[in-house]
Protein backbone atom coordinates (compact mmCIF):
# COMPACT_ATOMS: atom_id res chain seq x y z
CA UNK A 1 0.00 0.00 0.00
CA UNK A 2 1.49 3.18 -1.07
CA UNK A 3 -0.85 6.11 -0.79
CA UNK A 4 1.21 8.97 -2.16
CA UNK A 5 4.30 7.68 -3.75
CA UNK A 6 4.87 10.54 -6.10
CA UNK A 7 4.55 13.22 -3.47
CA UNK A 8 8.12 14.37 -3.29
CA UNK A 9 10.06 14.01 -6.47
CA UNK A 10 13.22 15.57 -5.15
CA UNK A 11 13.88 12.91 -2.55
CA UNK A 12 14.82 9.34 -3.48
CA UNK A 13 12.40 6.67 -2.30
CA UNK A 14 13.22 5.20 1.06
CA UNK A 15 12.52 1.66 2.20
CA UNK A 16 12.40 -0.35 5.38
CA UNK A 17 12.50 -4.04 6.23
CA UNK A 18 9.13 -4.50 7.75
CA UNK A 19 7.80 -7.27 10.02
CA UNK A 20 4.86 -8.99 8.35
CA UNK A 21 4.31 -12.40 9.94
CA UNK A 22 5.18 -13.22 13.56
CA UNK A 23 7.41 -16.24 14.16
CA UNK A 24 4.57 -18.24 15.74
CA UNK A 25 2.31 -17.79 12.74
CA UNK A 26 5.10 -18.93 10.40
CA UNK A 27 5.73 -22.07 12.43
CA UNK A 28 2.03 -22.91 12.67
CA UNK A 29 1.75 -22.35 8.93
CA UNK A 30 4.68 -24.55 7.91
CA UNK A 31 4.02 -27.34 10.44
CA UNK A 32 0.62 -27.66 8.81
CA UNK A 33 2.20 -28.60 5.52
CA UNK A 34 3.69 -32.02 6.40
CA UNK A 35 0.91 -32.68 8.90
CA UNK A 36 -1.95 -32.05 6.47
CA UNK A 37 -0.07 -33.90 3.77
CA UNK A 38 0.18 -36.94 6.06
CA UNK A 39 -3.47 -36.64 7.06
CA UNK A 40 -4.69 -36.47 3.46
CA UNK A 41 -2.37 -39.27 2.33
CA UNK A 42 -3.32 -41.59 5.19
CA UNK A 43 -6.94 -40.58 4.70
CA UNK A 44 -6.65 -41.68 1.09
CA UNK A 45 -5.22 -45.01 2.24
CA UNK A 46 -8.30 -45.46 4.41
CA UNK A 47 -10.71 -44.18 1.79
CA UNK A 48 -9.23 -46.13 -1.08
CA UNK A 49 -8.36 -49.32 0.80
CA UNK A 50 -11.49 -51.15 -0.19
CA UNK A 51 -13.53 -48.68 -2.19
CA UNK A 52 -13.00 -50.56 -5.42
CA UNK A 53 -14.80 -53.61 -4.12
CA UNK A 54 -18.49 -53.94 -4.93
CA UNK A 55 -20.94 -52.60 -2.38
CA UNK A 56 -18.31 -50.63 -0.52
CA UNK A 57 -18.27 -47.10 0.73
CA UNK A 58 -18.63 -44.73 -2.16
CA UNK A 59 -19.05 -41.03 -1.84
CA UNK A 60 -22.60 -40.28 -2.81
CA UNK A 61 -24.54 -37.10 -3.18
CA UNK A 62 -28.28 -37.56 -2.65
CA UNK A 63 -27.87 -41.23 -3.35
CA UNK A 64 -25.86 -40.84 -6.54
CA UNK A 65 -22.18 -41.76 -6.69
CA UNK A 66 -20.09 -38.63 -7.01
CA UNK A 67 -17.19 -40.27 -8.80
CA UNK A 68 -17.42 -42.77 -11.65
CA UNK A 69 -16.46 -46.33 -10.89
CA UNK A 70 -13.17 -45.84 -12.70
CA UNK A 71 -12.22 -43.31 -10.03
CA UNK A 72 -11.93 -46.17 -7.59
CA UNK A 73 -10.29 -48.53 -10.06
CA UNK A 74 -7.61 -46.41 -11.55
CA UNK A 75 -5.87 -48.62 -14.05
CA UNK A 76 -3.64 -46.96 -16.56
CA UNK A 77 -4.83 -46.59 -20.13
CA UNK A 78 -2.58 -48.05 -22.81
CA UNK A 79 -1.27 -44.62 -23.85
CA UNK A 80 -0.04 -43.84 -20.32
CA UNK A 81 3.63 -42.80 -20.65
CA UNK A 82 6.07 -45.22 -19.09
CA UNK A 83 8.01 -42.48 -17.31
CA UNK A 84 4.97 -41.31 -15.36
CA UNK A 85 4.54 -42.92 -11.96
CA UNK A 86 2.73 -46.22 -11.82
CA UNK A 87 3.16 -49.58 -10.18
CA UNK A 88 5.21 -52.20 -11.90
CA UNK A 89 2.47 -54.76 -11.40
CA UNK A 90 -0.33 -55.14 -13.87
CA UNK A 91 -4.04 -55.71 -13.57
CA UNK A 92 -5.76 -57.42 -16.49
CA UNK A 93 -2.60 -56.84 -18.53
CA UNK A 94 -2.88 -53.10 -17.88
CA UNK A 95 -0.12 -51.38 -15.93
CA UNK A 96 -1.42 -50.02 -12.67
CA UNK A 97 -1.63 -46.32 -11.92
CA UNK A 98 0.35 -45.15 -8.90
CA UNK A 99 -2.93 -44.42 -7.17
CA UNK A 100 -3.53 -48.12 -7.25
CA UNK A 101 -0.77 -48.57 -4.70
CA UNK A 102 -3.11 -46.96 -2.19
CA UNK A 103 -5.17 -50.13 -2.15
CA UNK A 104 -5.30 -52.55 0.78
CA UNK A 105 -3.24 -50.38 3.08
CA UNK A 106 -6.07 -49.69 5.52
CA UNK A 107 -4.21 -50.61 8.72
CA UNK A 108 -1.26 -48.45 7.70
CA UNK A 109 -3.55 -45.55 6.83
CA UNK A 110 -5.36 -45.83 10.14
CA UNK A 111 -2.31 -45.83 12.36
CA UNK A 112 -0.81 -42.82 10.58
CA UNK A 113 -4.15 -41.02 10.62
CA UNK A 114 -4.84 -41.65 14.31
CA UNK A 115 -1.31 -40.61 15.27
CA UNK A 116 -1.01 -37.50 13.13
CA UNK A 117 -4.43 -36.08 13.93
CA UNK A 118 -2.93 -35.14 17.27
CA UNK A 119 -0.40 -32.91 15.53
CA UNK A 120 -3.11 -31.41 13.35
CA UNK A 121 -5.38 -30.77 16.33
CA UNK A 122 -2.69 -29.43 18.66
CA UNK A 123 -1.11 -27.23 15.98
CA UNK A 124 -4.56 -25.92 15.07
CA UNK A 125 -5.46 -25.28 18.67
CA UNK A 126 -2.22 -23.39 19.30
CA UNK A 127 -2.72 -21.42 16.09
CA UNK A 128 -6.24 -20.37 17.03
CA UNK A 129 -5.21 -19.56 20.61
CA UNK A 130 -2.34 -17.47 19.30
CA UNK A 131 -4.59 -15.63 16.86
CA UNK A 132 -6.96 -14.74 19.68
CA UNK A 133 -4.36 -13.81 22.30
CA UNK A 134 -2.06 -11.82 20.03
CA UNK A 135 -4.77 -9.92 18.21
CA UNK A 136 -3.53 -11.36 14.91
CA UNK A 137 -7.11 -12.47 14.28
CA UNK A 138 -7.86 -8.90 13.25
CA UNK A 139 -5.78 -9.44 10.13
CA UNK A 140 -7.83 -12.34 8.87
CA UNK A 141 -11.32 -12.08 10.27
CA UNK A 142 -13.84 -11.03 7.61
CA UNK A 143 -15.66 -7.74 7.85
CA UNK A 144 -19.15 -6.84 6.77
CA UNK A 145 -17.96 -5.72 3.36
CA UNK A 146 -15.72 -8.76 2.88
CA UNK A 147 -18.18 -10.84 0.89
CA UNK A 148 -18.87 -8.13 -1.66
CA UNK A 149 -15.23 -7.14 -1.88
CA UNK A 150 -13.99 -10.69 -2.21
CA UNK A 151 -16.16 -11.11 -5.29
CA UNK A 152 -14.39 -8.05 -6.69
CA UNK A 153 -11.04 -9.65 -5.81
CA UNK A 154 -11.97 -12.75 -7.77
CA UNK A 155 -13.11 -10.62 -10.71
CA UNK A 156 -9.87 -8.68 -10.50
CA UNK A 157 -7.85 -11.92 -10.44
CA UNK A 158 -9.76 -13.07 -13.49
CA UNK A 159 -8.86 -9.76 -15.12
CA UNK A 160 -12.47 -8.80 -15.54
CA UNK A 161 -12.14 -5.94 -13.09
CA UNK A 162 -9.24 -3.57 -13.70
CA UNK A 163 -9.01 -1.75 -10.38
CA UNK A 164 -7.56 -3.71 -7.49
CA UNK A 165 -10.13 -3.80 -4.68
CA UNK A 166 -9.19 -2.16 -1.41
CA UNK A 167 -7.70 -4.18 1.37
CA UNK A 168 -7.56 -3.60 5.09
CA UNK A 169 -4.18 -4.54 6.42
CA UNK A 170 -1.95 -7.08 4.74
CA UNK A 171 -4.75 -9.23 3.29
CA UNK A 172 -7.47 -8.51 0.82
CA UNK A 173 -11.02 -9.50 1.60
CA UNK A 174 -10.99 -12.71 -0.37
CA UNK A 175 -7.97 -13.73 1.69
CA UNK A 176 -9.81 -12.83 4.87
CA UNK A 177 -12.70 -15.07 3.90
CA UNK A 178 -10.41 -17.88 2.80
CA UNK A 179 -8.11 -17.80 5.83
CA UNK A 180 -10.96 -17.67 8.30
CA UNK A 181 -12.92 -20.24 6.30
CA UNK A 182 -10.06 -22.72 6.27
CA UNK A 183 -9.83 -22.51 10.07
CA UNK A 184 -13.53 -23.32 10.32
CA UNK A 185 -13.04 -26.23 7.92
CA UNK A 186 -10.14 -27.43 10.05
CA UNK A 187 -12.41 -27.40 13.09
CA UNK A 188 -15.10 -29.22 11.11
CA UNK A 189 -12.46 -31.76 10.11
CA UNK A 190 -11.69 -32.54 13.76
CA UNK A 191 -15.36 -32.62 14.78
CA UNK A 192 -16.43 -34.90 11.94
CA UNK A 193 -13.31 -37.01 12.47
CA UNK A 194 -14.17 -37.64 16.11
CA UNK A 195 -17.77 -38.34 15.09
CA UNK A 196 -16.51 -41.10 12.77
CA UNK A 197 -13.81 -42.35 15.12
CA UNK A 198 -16.08 -42.69 18.16
CA UNK A 199 -19.68 -42.84 16.88
CA UNK A 200 -20.88 -44.65 20.00
CA UNK A 201 -18.92 -42.99 22.74
CA UNK A 202 -19.36 -39.57 21.14
CA UNK A 203 -22.75 -40.45 19.71
CA UNK A 204 -24.16 -36.98 20.48
CA UNK A 205 -21.55 -35.54 18.16
CA UNK A 206 -22.31 -38.06 15.42
CA UNK A 207 -26.02 -37.31 15.81
CA UNK A 208 -25.29 -33.58 15.63
CA UNK A 209 -23.70 -34.09 12.22
CA UNK A 210 -26.65 -36.12 10.99
CA UNK A 211 -25.41 -39.62 11.70
CA UNK A 212 -22.47 -41.83 10.86
CA UNK A 213 -22.80 -41.84 7.09
CA UNK A 214 -23.37 -38.08 6.98
CA UNK A 215 -20.34 -37.48 9.21
CA UNK A 216 -18.19 -39.44 6.76
CA UNK A 217 -19.64 -37.43 3.90
CA UNK A 218 -18.78 -34.16 5.68
CA UNK A 219 -15.29 -35.42 6.50
CA UNK A 220 -14.67 -36.30 2.87
CA UNK A 221 -15.90 -33.04 1.42
CA UNK A 222 -14.11 -30.96 4.03
CA UNK A 223 -10.95 -32.73 2.83
CA UNK A 224 -11.79 -31.83 -0.75
CA UNK A 225 -12.20 -28.19 0.32
CA UNK A 226 -8.80 -28.26 2.03
CA UNK A 227 -7.26 -29.70 -1.14
CA UNK A 228 -8.99 -27.01 -3.21
CA UNK A 229 -7.74 -24.35 -0.81
CA UNK A 230 -4.23 -25.77 -1.16
CA UNK A 231 -4.31 -25.61 -4.96
CA UNK A 232 -5.63 -22.04 -5.08
CA UNK A 233 -3.30 -20.97 -2.28
CA UNK A 234 -0.19 -22.32 -4.01
CA UNK A 235 -1.29 -20.82 -7.32
CA UNK A 236 -1.84 -17.40 -5.74
CA UNK A 237 1.49 -17.53 -3.92
CA UNK A 238 3.31 -18.33 -7.15
CA UNK A 239 1.43 -15.55 -8.90
CA UNK A 240 2.15 -13.01 -6.18
CA UNK A 241 5.84 -13.69 -6.32
CA UNK A 242 8.98 -14.26 -4.33
CA UNK A 243 8.78 -11.30 -1.91
CA UNK A 244 5.43 -12.45 -0.60
CA UNK A 245 6.56 -16.08 -0.31
CA UNK A 246 9.75 -14.97 1.40
CA UNK A 247 7.77 -13.04 3.99
CA UNK A 248 6.18 -16.30 5.23
CA UNK A 249 9.69 -17.70 5.77
CA UNK A 250 11.59 -14.68 7.08
CA UNK A 251 8.61 -12.87 8.51
CA UNK A 252 9.72 -9.67 6.81
CA UNK A 253 9.09 -7.76 3.67
CA UNK A 254 10.59 -4.69 2.07
CA UNK A 255 8.31 -1.70 2.16
CA UNK A 256 8.52 1.79 0.81
CA UNK A 257 8.34 4.50 3.44
CA UNK A 258 5.53 6.94 2.98
CA UNK A 259 7.25 10.26 2.59
CA UNK A 260 4.33 12.59 3.14
CA UNK A 261 3.74 12.10 6.80
CA UNK A 262 0.56 14.13 7.04
CA UNK A 263 -1.65 12.24 4.61
CA UNK A 264 -1.87 8.69 5.82
CA UNK A 265 -4.56 6.20 5.44
CA UNK A 266 -6.53 5.66 8.54
CA UNK A 267 -8.03 2.34 7.70
CA UNK A 268 -6.68 -0.98 8.80
CA UNK A 269 -6.28 0.13 12.36
CA UNK A 270 -9.49 -1.40 13.58
Amino acid at each position, binding site marked *: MDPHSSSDLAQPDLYVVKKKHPLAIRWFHWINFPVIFTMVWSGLLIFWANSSRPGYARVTLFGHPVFPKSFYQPSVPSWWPKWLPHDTETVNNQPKLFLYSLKYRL*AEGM*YWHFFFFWFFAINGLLYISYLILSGEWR*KIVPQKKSLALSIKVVLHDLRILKKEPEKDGIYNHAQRLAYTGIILIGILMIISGVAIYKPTQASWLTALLGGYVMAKWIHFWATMLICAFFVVHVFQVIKTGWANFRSMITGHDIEKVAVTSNSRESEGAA
Partner: protein
Amino acid sequence: MNPDNPENSIEPQGSSQAESGLPLAEVKKKMKSLTRRSLVWTAIAVVFADKGWKWLASRRQENGIPWPMAIALKTNEEIARDLFNEHALAKEYPKSSEEDVIDNGDIGRPESENSSPWKITVSDDNWDHDMHFTMADILSLPKVEMTTELRCIEGWSRIVSWGGCRLVDFMKAHPPSSRTSGAIDFGNFATLPEYVSITTPDDDYYVGLDVTSAIHPQTLLCYEMNGKPLEPKHGAPLRLVIPTKYGIKNIKWIGALTYTDTRPDDYWADQGYDWYAGL
Protein backbone atom coordinates in the same frame (compact mmCIF):
# COMPACT_ATOMS: atom_id res chain seq x y z
CA MET B 1 -6.09 -1.91 19.69
CA ASN B 2 -2.91 -3.82 19.60
CA PRO B 3 0.22 -1.70 19.57
CA ASP B 4 2.30 -4.57 18.23
CA ASN B 5 -0.05 -5.16 15.39
CA PRO B 6 2.04 -4.79 12.26
CA GLU B 7 -1.16 -4.44 10.33
CA ASN B 8 -0.97 -0.71 10.75
CA SER B 9 2.10 -0.86 8.66
CA ILE B 10 1.74 2.44 6.91
CA GLU B 11 1.74 4.39 10.08
CA PRO B 12 5.05 4.80 11.80
CA GLN B 13 3.53 4.46 15.28
CA GLY B 14 6.48 6.31 16.69
CA SER B 15 8.81 3.46 15.94
CA SER B 16 12.15 4.63 14.64
CA GLN B 17 12.33 1.89 12.04
CA ALA B 18 9.34 3.06 10.07
CA GLU B 19 10.48 6.67 10.04
CA SER B 20 14.09 6.30 9.05
CA GLY B 21 13.95 4.64 5.68
CA LEU B 22 16.99 3.51 3.79
CA PRO B 23 17.84 3.40 0.10
CA LEU B 24 16.63 0.28 -1.63
CA ALA B 25 20.08 -1.27 -2.08
CA GLU B 26 20.79 -1.17 1.65
CA VAL B 27 17.40 -2.52 2.59
CA LYS B 28 17.83 -5.33 0.09
CA LYS B 29 21.15 -6.21 1.69
CA LYS B 30 19.53 -6.32 5.10
CA MET B 31 16.72 -8.45 3.72
CA LYS B 32 19.21 -10.80 2.12
CA SER B 33 20.95 -11.57 5.38
CA LEU B 34 17.58 -12.07 7.04
CA THR B 35 16.57 -14.43 4.25
CA ARG B 36 19.83 -16.35 4.46
CA ARG B 37 19.32 -16.90 8.17
CA SER B 38 15.73 -18.02 7.64
CA LEU B 39 16.67 -20.38 4.85
CA VAL B 40 19.16 -22.12 7.13
CA TRP B 41 16.32 -22.66 9.56
CA THR B 42 14.13 -23.81 6.71
CA ALA B 43 16.73 -26.34 5.61
CA ILE B 44 17.06 -27.65 9.17
CA ALA B 45 13.27 -27.94 9.47
CA VAL B 46 12.92 -29.72 6.13
CA VAL B 47 15.69 -32.21 6.93
CA PHE B 48 14.26 -32.76 10.39
CA ALA B 49 10.74 -33.32 9.02
CA ASP B 50 11.94 -35.65 6.29
CA LYS B 51 14.20 -37.69 8.57
CA GLY B 52 11.57 -37.71 11.29
CA TRP B 53 8.91 -38.99 8.93
CA LYS B 54 11.14 -41.73 7.58
CA TRP B 55 12.30 -42.61 11.07
CA LEU B 56 8.66 -43.00 12.17
CA ALA B 57 7.78 -45.15 9.19
CA SER B 58 10.74 -47.48 9.66
CA ARG B 59 10.46 -48.19 13.37
CA ARG B 60 10.47 -51.71 14.74
CA GLN B 61 7.01 -53.12 14.30
CA GLU B 62 4.76 -54.51 16.97
CA ASN B 63 2.05 -56.61 15.33
CA GLY B 64 2.60 -54.79 12.07
CA ILE B 65 2.57 -51.30 13.60
CA PRO B 66 5.72 -49.18 14.02
CA TRP B 67 6.05 -48.78 17.77
CA PRO B 68 5.48 -44.98 17.93
CA MET B 69 2.10 -45.49 16.28
CA ALA B 70 1.41 -48.48 18.54
CA ILE B 71 1.95 -46.17 21.51
CA ALA B 72 -0.32 -43.58 19.88
CA LEU B 73 -3.11 -46.11 19.34
CA LYS B 74 -2.79 -47.39 22.91
CA THR B 75 -2.87 -43.79 24.16
CA ASN B 76 -5.95 -43.08 22.05
CA GLU B 77 -7.58 -46.16 23.58
CA GLU B 78 -6.83 -45.04 27.14
CA ILE B 79 -7.99 -41.49 26.43
CA ALA B 80 -11.19 -42.75 24.83
CA ARG B 81 -11.86 -44.99 27.82
CA ASP B 82 -11.27 -42.12 30.26
CA LEU B 83 -12.87 -39.34 28.27
CA PHE B 84 -15.99 -41.10 27.15
CA ASN B 85 -18.47 -43.26 28.96
CA GLU B 86 -17.47 -46.83 28.21
CA HIS B 87 -20.96 -47.98 29.05
CA ALA B 88 -22.56 -45.70 26.48
CA LEU B 89 -25.11 -47.51 24.39
CA ALA B 90 -24.85 -47.75 20.64
CA LYS B 91 -27.81 -46.15 18.92
CA GLU B 92 -30.71 -48.52 18.31
CA TYR B 93 -32.90 -48.16 15.25
CA PRO B 94 -36.46 -49.24 14.50
CA LYS B 95 -36.57 -52.79 13.16
CA SER B 96 -38.00 -51.45 9.90
CA SER B 97 -34.72 -49.80 8.98
CA GLU B 98 -32.79 -53.08 8.87
CA GLU B 99 -30.68 -53.76 5.78
CA ASP B 100 -29.05 -56.77 4.20
CA VAL B 101 -25.59 -57.17 5.53
CA ILE B 102 -22.54 -57.79 3.39
CA ASP B 103 -20.94 -61.19 3.81
CA ASN B 104 -17.39 -60.12 4.40
CA GLY B 105 -14.86 -62.74 5.34
CA ASP B 106 -14.88 -66.49 5.81
CA ILE B 107 -11.75 -66.93 7.89
CA GLY B 108 -12.43 -69.62 10.44
CA ARG B 109 -15.59 -70.86 8.74
CA PRO B 110 -16.06 -74.59 9.42
CA GLU B 111 -15.89 -76.72 6.30
CA SER B 112 -18.83 -78.97 7.03
CA GLU B 113 -21.82 -77.16 8.38
CA ASN B 114 -24.15 -79.74 9.85
CA SER B 115 -21.77 -82.32 11.18
CA SER B 116 -21.77 -82.98 14.90
CA PRO B 117 -23.74 -80.77 17.31
CA TRP B 118 -22.07 -77.40 17.83
CA LYS B 119 -19.83 -77.26 20.85
CA ILE B 120 -18.59 -74.17 22.68
CA THR B 121 -15.55 -74.61 24.89
CA VAL B 122 -15.10 -72.21 27.79
CA SER B 123 -11.84 -71.94 29.66
CA ASP B 124 -10.24 -69.73 32.25
CA ASP B 125 -6.61 -69.05 33.05
CA ASN B 126 -7.33 -70.29 36.58
CA TRP B 127 -9.37 -73.39 35.76
CA ASP B 128 -7.97 -76.88 35.62
CA HIS B 129 -10.57 -78.09 33.16
CA ASP B 130 -12.47 -76.57 30.27
CA MET B 131 -16.26 -76.46 30.23
CA HIS B 132 -18.33 -77.42 27.21
CA PHE B 133 -21.66 -76.04 26.12
CA THR B 134 -24.12 -76.61 23.34
CA MET B 135 -26.53 -74.30 21.54
CA ALA B 136 -29.24 -75.46 23.94
CA ASP B 137 -27.32 -73.79 26.76
CA ILE B 138 -27.22 -70.56 24.80
CA LEU B 139 -30.91 -70.74 23.87
CA SER B 140 -31.88 -71.24 27.51
CA LEU B 141 -30.62 -67.76 28.36
CA PRO B 142 -32.94 -64.72 28.01
CA LYS B 143 -33.27 -63.66 24.39
CA VAL B 144 -32.50 -60.07 23.49
CA GLU B 145 -33.33 -58.35 20.20
CA MET B 146 -31.76 -55.15 18.99
CA THR B 147 -31.34 -53.23 15.74
CA THR B 148 -27.94 -51.57 15.55
CA GLU B 149 -25.48 -50.33 12.97
CA LEU B 150 -22.73 -52.76 12.03
CA ARG B 151 -19.73 -50.65 11.11
CA CYS B 152 -16.97 -52.16 9.09
CA ILE B 153 -13.46 -50.86 9.52
CA GLU B 154 -13.29 -50.76 5.71
CA GLY B 155 -15.83 -48.00 5.64
CA TRP B 156 -19.29 -49.43 5.00
CA SER B 157 -22.02 -49.72 7.58
CA ARG B 158 -25.34 -51.52 7.67
CA ILE B 159 -28.28 -51.42 10.05
CA VAL B 160 -29.04 -54.98 11.13
CA SER B 161 -31.49 -56.61 13.56
CA TRP B 162 -29.89 -59.16 15.83
CA GLY B 163 -31.29 -61.79 18.18
CA GLY B 164 -29.35 -63.64 20.86
CA CYS B 165 -28.37 -63.67 24.48
CA ARG B 166 -26.20 -61.15 26.23
CA LEU B 167 -22.61 -62.25 26.62
CA VAL B 168 -22.78 -60.92 30.18
CA ASP B 169 -25.75 -63.22 30.90
CA PHE B 170 -23.72 -66.16 29.62
CA MET B 171 -20.78 -65.05 31.75
CA LYS B 172 -23.02 -64.77 34.81
CA ALA B 173 -24.43 -68.24 34.15
CA HIS B 174 -20.96 -69.70 33.70
CA PRO B 175 -18.79 -67.28 35.60
CA PRO B 176 -15.04 -66.99 35.47
CA SER B 177 -13.09 -67.53 38.64
CA SER B 178 -12.93 -64.48 40.86
CA ARG B 179 -9.73 -62.49 40.59
CA THR B 180 -9.92 -61.56 44.26
CA SER B 181 -10.42 -63.68 47.38
CA GLY B 182 -14.08 -62.66 47.44
CA ALA B 183 -16.91 -63.91 45.26
CA ILE B 184 -17.26 -62.87 41.62
CA ASP B 185 -19.19 -59.62 41.29
CA PHE B 186 -20.02 -58.20 37.87
CA GLY B 187 -20.29 -54.74 39.40
CA ASN B 188 -16.74 -54.94 40.72
CA PHE B 189 -14.12 -55.07 37.99
CA ALA B 190 -11.43 -56.18 40.45
CA THR B 191 -13.09 -59.60 40.66
CA LEU B 192 -13.39 -60.00 36.87
CA PRO B 193 -10.80 -61.22 34.41
CA GLU B 194 -9.39 -58.35 32.36
CA TYR B 195 -10.13 -59.84 28.97
CA VAL B 196 -12.29 -62.30 27.11
CA SER B 197 -10.82 -64.13 24.14
CA ILE B 198 -13.14 -65.68 21.53
CA THR B 199 -12.03 -67.97 18.72
CA THR B 200 -13.44 -70.05 15.89
CA PRO B 201 -13.31 -73.86 16.29
CA ASP B 202 -10.14 -74.09 14.20
CA ASP B 203 -8.54 -71.02 15.87
CA ASP B 204 -8.12 -69.41 12.46
CA TYR B 205 -10.01 -66.29 13.53
CA TYR B 206 -9.72 -64.90 17.01
CA VAL B 207 -10.66 -61.70 18.78
CA GLY B 208 -9.78 -60.18 22.12
CA LEU B 209 -12.18 -58.02 24.11
CA ASP B 210 -11.56 -55.86 27.16
CA VAL B 211 -13.94 -57.03 29.87
CA THR B 212 -15.83 -53.70 29.91
CA SER B 213 -16.80 -54.26 26.30
CA ALA B 214 -17.54 -57.94 26.93
CA ILE B 215 -20.06 -57.25 29.68
CA HIS B 216 -21.61 -54.31 27.80
CA PRO B 217 -25.39 -54.91 27.59
CA GLN B 218 -25.35 -54.71 23.77
CA THR B 219 -22.69 -57.37 23.39
CA LEU B 220 -24.63 -60.43 22.22
CA LEU B 221 -23.99 -64.08 21.49
CA CYS B 222 -26.17 -63.99 18.44
CA TYR B 223 -28.10 -66.68 16.58
CA GLU B 224 -30.64 -64.58 14.67
CA MET B 225 -30.15 -61.93 12.04
CA ASN B 226 -32.88 -59.74 10.56
CA GLY B 227 -35.54 -61.97 12.15
CA LYS B 228 -34.20 -65.20 10.63
CA PRO B 229 -31.91 -67.88 11.98
CA LEU B 230 -28.32 -66.91 11.35
CA GLU B 231 -27.03 -68.13 7.97
CA PRO B 232 -23.85 -70.20 7.85
CA LYS B 233 -22.01 -67.47 5.94
CA HIS B 234 -22.91 -64.98 8.67
CA GLY B 235 -21.60 -67.17 11.46
CA ALA B 236 -24.21 -69.87 12.23
CA PRO B 237 -24.85 -71.22 14.67
CA LEU B 238 -23.32 -68.60 16.96
CA ARG B 239 -21.52 -65.33 16.42
CA LEU B 240 -20.64 -62.27 18.44
CA VAL B 241 -22.36 -58.95 17.87
CA ILE B 242 -20.72 -55.99 19.51
CA PRO B 243 -21.91 -52.64 18.10
CA THR B 244 -19.45 -50.72 20.27
CA LYS B 245 -16.62 -52.17 18.16
CA TYR B 246 -15.80 -52.36 14.48
CA GLY B 247 -17.06 -55.37 12.54
CA ILE B 248 -13.70 -57.11 12.86
CA LYS B 249 -14.50 -57.86 16.51
CA ASN B 250 -17.90 -59.37 15.62
CA ILE B 251 -16.46 -62.87 15.32
CA LYS B 252 -18.51 -65.55 13.55
CA TRP B 253 -18.62 -69.33 14.26
CA ILE B 254 -17.78 -69.08 17.96
CA GLY B 255 -15.99 -72.23 19.05
CA ALA B 256 -14.21 -71.22 22.22
CA LEU B 257 -14.26 -68.52 24.83
CA THR B 258 -11.51 -67.84 27.35
CA TYR B 259 -11.43 -65.68 30.47
CA THR B 260 -7.94 -64.31 30.78
CA ASP B 261 -5.84 -61.57 32.32
CA THR B 262 -3.35 -61.28 29.51
CA ARG B 263 -4.31 -59.24 26.47
CA PRO B 264 -5.46 -61.89 23.99
CA ASP B 265 -4.22 -62.09 20.43
CA ASP B 266 -6.53 -60.58 17.87
CA TYR B 267 -6.57 -61.60 14.22
CA TRP B 268 -6.62 -58.11 12.74
CA ALA B 269 -4.55 -56.51 15.49
CA ASP B 270 -1.83 -58.98 14.45
CA GLN B 271 -1.99 -57.38 11.00
CA GLY B 272 -1.48 -53.81 12.08
CA TYR B 273 -5.00 -52.80 13.10
CA ASP B 274 -5.89 -51.14 16.38
CA TRP B 275 -6.44 -53.85 19.03
CA TYR B 276 -9.14 -51.87 20.83
CA ALA B 277 -11.09 -51.00 17.67
CA GLY B 278 -13.68 -49.23 19.83
CA LEU B 279 -16.31 -46.98 18.36
